[in-house]
């Protein structure tokens, strides 16, 4: 892109792509903003009226909002912690030369290919079911009282399911990073007298800082919008115990049929996601530089 002419031509050629992307993004956003200012309920069609910021007021002052915001943060934070910590350990394990390593790797990666609704159903009916679930069977055969997961620890149950789904992703990224760690560096540390733990904390972990950052950023984007697992298992309950922002907006729009408030909630979620992204990039994004 050296000359004036090639630069102009370049701009001309990328214009259609940029325009398509722009329309793709801006039309839904503008429509959402528009709906968020209307009193728009699907039960009373044809009575839409402009109400200004009233929908935002209702959404933000709804007690469900703070509860679901807290649930969202707990869910995202817990899943991140579980997947990064266990993912690192599993990756370390898979990096060792063991017999049948390729098969084990394939099996570790498998949960990522199971669609969220299916895995949620499997967890709900086959594993966590208080009567016929595997966990209940283990508990009763040990003489313990089986846990009714979705009644007694609903958010924790959701966290387990989502973490199980995202663990392969973290493991895979961290494993490839581990494999790129220079063998001579580990040997140098060995000559320097570093044991397994010192080598891990002084050599391996700093090497993993960047891939861990990537895992955190990418997972956060998807974990803020977890929906299928909640819809299939608890439906946001009991009460509001497993309602996150995404599920709250869904319930506003399609359970209470209030499109206006749901749109306002959607925009609040956009703002929240940006706030989270801003802090995340500030805190961990440093690792991506250089």
């Amino acid at each position: 892109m050296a000359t004036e002419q090639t630069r102009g031509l370049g701009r001309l050629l990328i214009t259609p792509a940029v325009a398509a992307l722009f329309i793709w993004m801006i039309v839904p956003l503008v429509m959402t903003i528009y709906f968020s200012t209307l009193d728009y309920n699907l039960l009373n069609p044809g009575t839409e009226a402009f109400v200004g910021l009233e929908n935002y007021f209702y959404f933000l002052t709804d007690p469900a909002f703070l509860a679901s915001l807290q649930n969202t943060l707990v869910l995202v934070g817990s899943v991140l912690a579980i997947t990064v910590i266990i993912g690192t350990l599993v990756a370390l394990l898979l990096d060792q030369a063991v017999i049948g390593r390729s098969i084990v790797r394939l099996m570790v990666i498998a949960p990522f290919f199971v669609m969220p609704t299916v895995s949620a159903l499997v967890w709900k009916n086959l594993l966590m079911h208080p009567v016929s679930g595997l966990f209940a069977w283990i508990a009763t055969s040990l003489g313990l009282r089986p846990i009714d997961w979705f009644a007694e620890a609903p958010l924790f149950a959701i966290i387990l399911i989502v973490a199980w789904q995202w663990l392969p992703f973290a493991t895979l990224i961290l494993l490839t990073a581990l494999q790129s760690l220079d063998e001579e560096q580990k040997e140098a540390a060995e000559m320097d007298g570093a044991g397994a733990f010192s080598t891990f904390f002084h050599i391996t972990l700093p090497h993993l800082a960047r891939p861990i950052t990537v895992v955190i950023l990418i997972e956060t984007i998807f974990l803020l919008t977890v929906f299928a697992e909640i819809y299939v298992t608890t439906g946001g309950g009991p009460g509001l115990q497993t309602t996150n922002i995404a599920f709250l907006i869904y319930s506003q729009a399609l359970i209470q049929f209030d499109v206006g408030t749901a749109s306002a909630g959607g925009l609040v979620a956009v703002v929240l996601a940006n706030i989270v992204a801003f802090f995340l990039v500030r805190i961990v994004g440093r690792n991506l530089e250089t």
Partner: protein
Amino acid sequence: MGRITLEGVRKSFASHLIIKGADLDIDDGSFVVFVGPSGCGKTTLLRLIAGLEDVSEGRILIDGANVVGVPPSKRGLSMVFQSYALYPHMSVRGNIAFGLKMAGLPKAEIDRKVEAAAATLNLTPYLDRKPRELSGGQRQRVAIGRAIVREPKAFLFDEPLSNLDAALRVQMRLEVTRLQRQLGTTAVYVTHDQVEAMTMADRIVVLNAGRIEQYGSPLELYERPANIFVAGFIGSPRMNFIADEAARRYGAATIGVRPEHIKASRDGEGWEGLVTDAEHLGSDTFLHVDIAGIGNLTARSIGEIGLSAGDRARLLPDPAHIHRFDENGKALHA
């Protein structure tokens, strides 16, 4: 102290025998170079001494104590790797201090030792930089600094200069030898570059296909090679080998003459042949001469002697410098 002794050391990977029995005695304070072609096992032998590989058979003694089974860090050796293997996220100071930190030395003492090592290697201005901000030569020096700061019984160098450009390599070669002499620490140095071997070593170990072919001082190897392999490996350009008729006249299966021991002239005494190539370096001239019944010989002459490709030339070997070998390639001594 740093006396390293190898007794019947063998190493095999799977069923493949890489080191086929090595016996070696490295004196305290000496600079020993392992040299040989690619795949001869020189790096493996070094890694066996370091403890990064386990020996399959035999014993390795450091100052008389058997170290087989002793972890690398407990052997009191330090190693400079080919890729330097610096820790990328640590500063130069952190890199040099790491071994001392692992040994649990008090902070003040670590600082003192690191500063001293940095001063020796002219690294003081760079102590707070990261490895990626350093040039190749500086990184090399950090790797050496990491080795010397632990005051080991011996240094192990694994082709440390192979990533540097030619000019820097010559300079670092001198620096490493000077530093080793100044510290008086035993050094074992692996290289495939015979110039490095000749210039740096007190004694050279020539390895070939997992065997020690000869162990001796550089000049010993040059003047009295034990066999054809050593004769051909040490010296540049390569020694000329002549078999059959011409060799039988000297009572050997093969004779060898170094290019610098062949006198080339336009019309003097000796074998006559056609100059196929002539390399004019200014200081030297390398002539490749095709001689009927003998083969292609290389002759080295000082300066210009006025012969070029296509000329006829006469080559006269210096009878005092003819090496004789039997049919197994062993040197025959008069």
